[in-house]
């Protein structure tokens, strides 16, 4: 099966090639595209490259005549760099004349130029870099010799906008290098078929699938759940009560990764651990807001084995192998079984040894969620994903990029785009609308024809109207839209804000805008005092105040997966299984059963009760905070109309609580929760939803309507500029069917608003709503009500904020002196 050279190499290392590695060599010999599904530590990457190395080993050695053979694409540039390093060993030890290079945002301009003309045998890069390479006039020459594309961590890329971009790039590669084959590498997924479709060109009529190889699973992980029989908090996400358990787990392991779900949680956990770190164990912090140098330092220390633990967010979910990690600690809710598997897989990269994990629930609902997630992982069941269709905004970017490479024929490009799995169902009308959008903005009012970006050539092709537009494309390419960020600069106390200051990292602009000078927050492991915002950044000093106002800045908030929600609901509805749970949780559920009711599988429980001078309605869909927030917005609109005077609502991952001036117990809940709320109510709410406007902004940037802001090129305050919200308001009123608004709506279905999930839920609970009119709050309702002060989202909150500021300050404002 393997050439002698390779057999010797495996033998010399004391290895035997694994079955799935050989299977991939076989598929390659037949010229087939294939998906390899294997758990971490299965020698996946080597399996992907083995056929390429075998093919190149047998080729003439003069590299200059060969051209690019294999393109490797990973979601992370760090992973590409790491893989390049790992390929060195077999290549050097077998003395293969194979060149391997990476191409990322960090690659020098000279090297990139050279790679275009003299590509290596194997090029390792990211989806964004592939788009840029394809948008170059030399693309056809560069890729004509391509034989293989290897897609790493395909499960993390496929069902996303980056996946759309990659799919379109692959479709182009099919035209430039017909007959090349693809290898997809994926962690264990519930359903591999969507990934198999992603790998091969889709014919117009039926669907095509790549071959599939499933590696034999490794050892079952050991998952413990930390739970005290004495005390478990009702609400909150910090798990302060369990920090000693976490510290003990760190002490017992060589190196531990401590995963949390948000950056503010990371900051807080890091602080809590150091407060009890009596033996001064080297514990570090890693999250996406820290300065890049800071993150690299932590990663390097980790690679050297200098650290005992790293507190981190999803930034370390994927990425390079750290052999020394032998324990994964997950604080808070796991959110999904697949995510938990991924995180647990970060410990121990050897297939045959079990990974060890400790789950630390921070509140009672999270105890249920952790138990559900553990059961699912041990049973080998994973969450499925709702498949998204290809975004029209991403398509617009691709159309623009295509014109940068060469004039294109619309019919030919349409055929190519439809061969990409996410765009299989794309209609010609939509495609033409996107081309029209790229050319002149695509407005019904044809104002911009004379400024067109794309013009028709004599033979009916579209060409770029001006070479400068290729440069614009390069500056705006990619589908990752970051929130506007502000640099955090640390200055010494007593100096005026704006003077000097070392960069600590960056935070979202919207968070900073909410701070007033003097406010304190935790960042980069310190309590900082906000001093003021200047053009160059937000200036802070160190604060001695241990009681910081903890920031709620975003980052890494994943919704509870539909699959896991289902399991949690089942767990709640089966009293015979409660004995597995810690005592405080059992007691909590039993009192709920006695005071109200435990909903049966498939039912939605709605409770109403008075408290204080307000009336509450609490329901428990378990569909995640995003879907609950959308539901809350829609319910308050209905309650407003029915005269119940809703005053506000709060949503968490499991429940939604609405409060009003009037008792809501007399409502027809089937009517209140009717699916028709997704019609007009949704539409009028979207018109003013901030989340929806943010979704629009992202689409507008990806599609190229609004240009990205670049450091140093931002408009300063004196230059009055426009915002995407203003554009949204005008476009929505005057051309509601515009292609960009359709792209936004499609995004909202799965993105920040989770409308699709809400729709499924409403359909599921139809005629299965159980209502209870209670005299007082039920045990299940307590966690949601406890969050009210922290997480309130009122119906017309913006106006309420204005009114409240006015009320509080009106005496000052009205003073006549």
């Amino acid at each position: 099966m393997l050439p002698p050279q390779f057999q010797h190499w495996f033998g010399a290392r004391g290895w035997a090639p694994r079955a799935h590695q050989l299977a991939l060599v076989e598929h390659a010999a037949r010229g087939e595209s294939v998906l390899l599904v294997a758990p971490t530590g299965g020698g996946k990457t080597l399996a992907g490259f083995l056929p390429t190395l075998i093919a190149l080993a047998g080729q003439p050695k003069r590299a200059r005549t060969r051209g690019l053979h294999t393109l490797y694409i990973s979601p992370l540039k760090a992973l590409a760099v790491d893989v390049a390093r790992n390929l060195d060993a077999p290549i050097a030890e077998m003395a293969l004349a194979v060149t391997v290079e990476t191409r990322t945002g960090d690659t020098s301009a000279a090297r990139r130029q050279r790679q275009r003309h003299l590509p290596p045998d194997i090029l390792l890069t990211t989806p964004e870099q592939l788009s840029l390479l394809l948008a170059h006039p030399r693309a056809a020459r560069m890729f004509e010799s391509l034989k293989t594309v290897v897609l790493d961590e395909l499960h993390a890329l496929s069902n996303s906008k980056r996946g759309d971009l990659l799919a379109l790039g692959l479709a182009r590669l099919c035209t430039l290098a017909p007959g090349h084959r693809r290898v997809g590498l994926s962690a264990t997924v519930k359903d591999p078929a969507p990934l198999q479709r992603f790998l091969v060109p889709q014919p117009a009529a039926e669907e095509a699938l790549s071959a599939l190889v499933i590696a034999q699973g490794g050892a079952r992980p050991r998952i413990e759940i930390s739970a005290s029989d004495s005390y478990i908090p009702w609400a909150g996400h910090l798990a302060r009560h369990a920090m000693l358990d976490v510290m003990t787990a760190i002490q017992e392991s060589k190196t531990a990764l401590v995963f949390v779900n948000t950056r503010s949680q990371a900051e807080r956990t890091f602080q809590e651990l150091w407060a009890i770190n009596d033996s001064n164990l080297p514990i570090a912090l890693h999250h996406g807001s820290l300065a890049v140098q800071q993150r690299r330092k932590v990663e390097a220390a980790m690679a050297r084995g200098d650290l005992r633990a790293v507190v981190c967010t999803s930034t370390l979910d994927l990425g390079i192998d750290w052999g020394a990690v032998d324990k994964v600690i997950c604080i808070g809710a796991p959110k999904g079984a697949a995510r938990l598997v991924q995180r647990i897989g970060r410990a121990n990269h050897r297939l045959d040894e079990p990974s060890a994990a400790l789950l630390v629930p921070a509140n009672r609902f999270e105890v249920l969620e952790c138990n559900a997630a553990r059961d699912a992982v041990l049973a080998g069941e994973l969450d499925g994903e709702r498949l998204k269709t290809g975004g029209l905004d991403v398509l617009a970017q691709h159309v623009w990029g295509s014109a940068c490479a060469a004039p294109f024929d619309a019919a030919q490009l349409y055929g190519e785009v439809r061969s990409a799995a996410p765009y299989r169902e794309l209609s010609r009308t939509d495609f033409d609308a996107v081309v029209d959008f790229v050319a002149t903005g695509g407005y019904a009012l044809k104002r911009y024809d004379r400024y067109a970006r794309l013009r028709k050539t004599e033979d009916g092709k579209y060409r770029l109207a001006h070479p400068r537009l290729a440069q614009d494309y390069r500056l705006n390419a990619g589908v990752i839209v970051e929130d506007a960020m502000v640099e955090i600069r640390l200055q010494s106390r007593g100096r005026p804000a704006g003077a000097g200051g070392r960069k600590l990292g960056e935070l979202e602009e919207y968070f900073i805008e909410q701070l007033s000078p003097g406010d304190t927050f935790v960042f980069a492991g310190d309590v900082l005092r906000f001093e003021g915002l200047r053009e160059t950044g937000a200036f802070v000093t160190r604060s001695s105040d241990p009681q910081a106002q903890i920031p709620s800045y975003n980052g890494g908030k994943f919704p509870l997966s539909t699959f896991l929600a289902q399991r949690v609901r089942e767990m709640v509805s089966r009293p015979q299984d409660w004995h597995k749970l810690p005592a405080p949780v059992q007691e909590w559920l039993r009192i709920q059963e006695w005071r109200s009711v435990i909903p049966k599988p498939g039912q939605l429980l709605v409770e109403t009760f008075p408290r204080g001078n307000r009336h509450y309605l609490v329901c428990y869909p378990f569909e995640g905070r995003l879907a609950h927030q959308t539901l809350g917005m829609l319910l308050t609109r209905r309650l407003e109309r029915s005269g119940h005077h809703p005053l506000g609502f709060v949503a968490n991952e499991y429940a939604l609580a609405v409060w009003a001036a009037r008792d809501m117990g007399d409502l027809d809940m089937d009517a209140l929760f009717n699916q028709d709320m997704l019609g007009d109510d949704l539409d009028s709410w979207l018109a003013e939803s901030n989340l929806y406007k943010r979704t629009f902004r992202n689409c507008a940037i990806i599609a190229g309507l609004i240009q990205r802001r670049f450091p140093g090129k931002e408009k300063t305050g004196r230059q009055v500029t426009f915002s995407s919200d203003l554009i949204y308001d005008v476009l929505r009123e005057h051309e509601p069917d515009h292609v960009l608004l359709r792209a936004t709506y499609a995004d909202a279905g799965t993105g920040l608003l989770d409308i699709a999930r809400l729709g499924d839920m409403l359909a599921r609970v139809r005629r299965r709503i159980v209502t209870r009119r209670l005299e007082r709050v039920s045990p299940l309702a307590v966690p949601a009500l406890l969050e009210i002060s922290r997480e309130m989202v009122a119906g017309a909150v913006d106006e309420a904020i204005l009114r409240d500021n006015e009320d509080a300050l009106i005496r000052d404002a009205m003073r006549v002196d």
Partner: protein
Amino acid sequence: MRCVWTDPVSGDLLIDVNGETLLLDACGAAFSPAHSTLVFADLHFEKGSSYARGRQFLPPYDTTHTLQRMAHAIGRHKPARVIALGDSFHDKDAAYRLGPEERGLLQSLCRAAHFVWIAGNHDPHPPDWLGGEVAASFRLGGLLLRHEPGAMFQPGEVAGHLHPCASVARWGRSVRRRCFVSDGIRLILPSFGAYTGGLDVGDTAIASLFAGPFHAYMLGRSRVYAIARRAAARRAV
């Protein structure tokens, strides 16, 4: 002396500026009942299409949007006179880029009231086919209306040009809105044009105009909110 109060019938906010009473409309216009005059600032017609030359194709509906909102305010207050405080056109070619419908809408507005077009830095010479008169500044009782606030202290000055905005925060969220700014002696109007952004009232360009405390009158959905400078002052965005 009353300086800020609410009309008991309409709910509109009224303020005194240098002895003249002005109604602050939530759409961003100011109305003087005594002089039957409605004032708009910084309309920036055809700002959207001005980006097309750089091949950025913003929705070409901003002028229509602005004109419709003007028409609504004129219909509500039925003024004898309308004053546009300058920068009514985004650039010197903007008037030529107007489509026939927008031009028609604008001319019909000019027939509904007497228009005074104050020249701004974006439009030193408004087009001559417009109805009404063109002026560098305009005196209205105790008020002096002009485009840019002067460097010299001028009681009764009513100006635009700065596009003031203010933000307030509560419950972990912030709200940023266009606003009027006044200390009872001078008044800055918010920009009215659909695509016009804003400058925070905490910026020195605005804050330095007022010697003492001033108020931001933030535009709500259907009314104007009076916010003390302490709450509103932040920074340029």
